[in-house]
């Protein structure tokens, strides 16, 4: 195979291939959202920089930093040849957390894969006991994890949140819906994409074992719930008629009730590795 033949073969592969029908409006909307967030971040960053500068000026002006009245900057001992930081290895913290090197966490982790498989099993058991809808074995799966460095050596972290998406099919329809679940560790802020996706959150009184409080958001594509459990975990579940990553066609509906979603989120088996 030479250069020219490869070029021809590659174009043969792709040039007649169907392209997903995606509304240009959606690309514009995503761009606007990113631009808005970026501008917000720039404003916040500038405000933070101003605040930091003011604090520094105040400290220097008041002569703080050293007992002799000199600024702290000149007193800092700089090691001219710092020893290289050793690569962190997994360690257990007194809080029962396991710190792993941050770079390692981006690789497939057997413990995380096992827990995520468990999530799917719980969702299937709670929301699709007949096995008619959830793509438990198919490719429409993903893993989202969030790490925290709190209490861990530099360059390592512990799993502070973990979630997954599972596709939802309806017989006779070509579209694809999704069930998303996100489990947040005690004491962590439940700021996942599920919570951020909707603005219609309403408190929902519930009397489920082990549940302190719950919130529900009804949205165009379905329903999302957040459950705050007495063991400190927060569990978020979203049932959406469109699996935006994988399909441009929604399913007609997800045959699950708000009560089913709340009961699923209250399941004490939703924990973290």
């Amino acid at each position, binding site marked *: *195979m*030479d*250069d020219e033949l*490869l*070029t021809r*073969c*590659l*174009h*043969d*592969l*792709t*040039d007649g*291939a169907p*392209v*997903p029908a*995606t509304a*240009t*409006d959606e*690309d*514009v909307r*995503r*761009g*606007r959202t*990113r*631009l808005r967030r*970026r501008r917000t971040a720039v404003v916040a960053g500038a405000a933070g920089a101003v605040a930091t500068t003011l604090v520094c000026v105040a400290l220097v002006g008041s002569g703080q930093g050293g007992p002799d009245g000199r600024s702290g900057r000149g007193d800092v001992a700089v090691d001219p040849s710092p020893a290289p930081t050793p690569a962190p290895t997994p360690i257990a913290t007194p809080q029962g957390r396991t710190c792993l090197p941050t770079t390692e966490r*981006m690789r497939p982790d057997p413990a995380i*894969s096992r827990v995520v498989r468990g999530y799917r099993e719980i969702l299937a058991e709670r929301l699709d006991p007949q096995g008619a809808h959830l793509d438990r*074995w*198919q*490719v*429409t*799966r*993903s*893993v*989202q*994890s*969030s790490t925290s460095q709190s209490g861990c050596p530099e360059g390592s972290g512990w799993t502070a949140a973990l979630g997954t*998406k599972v596709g939802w099919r309806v017989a006779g329809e070509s579209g694809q819906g999704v069930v998303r679940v996100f489990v947040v560790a005690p004491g962590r802020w439940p700021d996942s994409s599920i919570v951020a996706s909707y603005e219609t959150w309403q408190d929902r009184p519930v009397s489920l074992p082990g549940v302190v409080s719950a919130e529900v958001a009804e949205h165009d594509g379905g329903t999302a719930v957040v459950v705050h459990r007495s063991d400190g975990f927060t569990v978020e579940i979203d049932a959406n008629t469109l699996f935006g*990553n*994988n399909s441009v066609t929604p399913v007609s509906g997800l045959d699950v009730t708000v009560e089913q979603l709340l009961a699923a989120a209250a399941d004490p088996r939703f924990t973290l590795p």
Partner: protein
Amino acid sequence: MRDDEFAAYVEQRRPQLFRAAWLLCADPHRAEDVVQAALTRLYVAWPRVRRADSVDAYVRRAVVNAHLDEGRRPWRRETAAGERLPDVPVPAATSALEERDALWTALRALPPGQRRVVVLRHWWGLSVEETAADLGISPGTVKSQTSAALAALRTALSDEPTDELTREVP
């Protein structure tokens, strides 16, 4: 103004970007994610890129970078091939189809770096220097990766069995 110009550009170029991303990712779903990410970046940078008259070059780099980022993202797809394949009869393949399957398989087997070089050089038609600039590597590396990729493709395609059909999970 930005929205109108951007929308017109996307309307015209999206198919090309998707096909390039598809070759890079070897997966249509991930390709769509990559295109979305690249176009979002393009929208943010639009006034600057438009003024510099370098929209195509910018978005091409954005696609490649988004492909790089895609591999690092926390959300990542897990393919379940081997756990359970759909029980669907596979139609008899023609010779042309077999050749396409063989090329896809060979492309998927290339390391990501070599695949990027192949797509930029042989699909997008960039020179060695342009490819090197896009990827941030030296022209010598582009040449060596091109050579390695061609050798691997040549070997894979010559070894491809013709009496056995395989089916990929989409």
